């Protein structure tokens, strides 16, 4: 199963490297939204909960773009039938897609977080990084797991571009709450990371639950 997942993943990454459809769009979108926030909020520098909220909401909206595109290649070129004819565990497909989305998110954040620090963040980013990076990674796992599931769910509907944001955004509210609350003290001047354990705990719980659900349930999708 792992081998199958790796093969699918390699194919997806190759396509992404060649066509550059998802990650540049997500990145450009994120930076644009930061600029929008500068104008919309009429602020030069954000800190604390406002900074945390702007960062995470923007990342989530960018993730929606990535999730919508996740099965796009298969949908457009009928590659799903080929995958399904092979005696392959559907879960491998989920694992590949989730891993791909995770990697896209990591690349996105490598650009987006410094951009955020440059355009909108008041306090210094560097001291916050050692704690911020694990938060980002744990949140990405949850996003990737649920994103791959939602993408598959929406893939067979008539309007996946509409269904994906409607499905994904409410589902990630707990993730948003935990990640934003965990990040908030990091982006304040004083850097006291209080309650980090609790929020990371909730984030991890979210990740575990939805990875398990996705694995349990994915076999029933794309079943023809």
């Amino acid at each position, binding site marked *: 199963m792992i081998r199958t997942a790796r093969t699918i993943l390699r194919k997806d990454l190759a396509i992404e490297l060649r066509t550059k459809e998802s990650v540049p769009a997500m990145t450009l979108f994120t930076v644009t939204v930061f600029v929008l926030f500068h104008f919309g909020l009429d602020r030069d520098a954000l800190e604390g909960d406002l900074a945390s909220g702007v960062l995470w909401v923007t990342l989530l909206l960018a993730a929606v773009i990535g999730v919508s595109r996740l099965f796009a290649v298969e949908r457009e070129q009928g590659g799903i039938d080929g995958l399904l004819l092979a005696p392959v565990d559907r879960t491998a497909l989920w694992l590949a897609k989730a891993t791909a989305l995770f990697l896209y998110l990591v690349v996105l954040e490598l650009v987006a977080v410094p951009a955020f620090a440059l355009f909108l963040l008041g306090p210094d980013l560097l001291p916050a990084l050692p704690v911020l990076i694990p938060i980002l990674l744990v949140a990405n796992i949850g996003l990737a797991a649920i994103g791959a599931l939602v993408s598959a769910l929406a893939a067979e509907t008539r309007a996946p571009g509409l269904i994906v944001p409607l499905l994904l955004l409410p589902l990630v509210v707990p993730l948003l*709450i*935990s990640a934003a609350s965990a990040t908030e003290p990091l982006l304040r001047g004083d850097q006291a990371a209080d309650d980090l354990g609790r929020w990371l705990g909730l984030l991890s719980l979210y990740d575990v639950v939805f990875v398990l659900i996705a694995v349990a349930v994915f076999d029933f999708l794309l079943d023809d």
Partner: protein
Amino acid sequence: MYSKGLKPLSIATVVLMGASLALVFFYAPNDADQGFVQKIFYVHVPLAIVALGGFVAGGIFAIQNLRTGDRSWDARSYVAIHMSIIFGVVVLITGSIWARAAWGHWWVWDEPVLVSFLVVFLLYCVYYPLRFSIEDPDRQARYSSVFAIAAGAFVPINFAAVRMAEAFTHPRVLSQTGGSMPGDMRMTFFVCIAAVALLFITMWKLELTAKNASMQLKRLRRRLEAEAA
């Protein structure tokens, strides 16, 4: 088949609803802080609890659907979710009325139950476009079940997250919603929950029976029209 036990169930529902109304207005004492307005709590919170239970039940029925492939479980799941959404609308409306009466605003963000419920409600509203944009009945049942399971698991996590968030931003002493309730209020509250739960189950059964009857009729019609042709 779905209508088994419908009569005793309906009778029990009527009895319990009557009993709870009597308890609410003639037995339970007035709340110290909110006065008479607190009576809304006896209809709003049981509705919310039962609606959430309905969503979770929808998820459990969905698990059965995926495990057995029997589409009657999908019907049970769909109707449970459908009923919960309808109850959900009433939850949000009564919650808004309560907010207005108790705190002066039609919506408040520092009631974690209300906020969590809004998120859950928005999520489940997507169930309809998802379900009805899939034409193949077998696939429709499967995809709906997948959604119902993921969303059903989401409900408790969401409540935990929102509750935690509100605890830190708005440290409120939740005096009504479960904190310290005097005995007679508590008993009234539980009777109300039981009454609303029975109401939900009765309505759910009614809906299932009606749906099943329509479907049987359609099948019968098709057979008769084919024979008469």
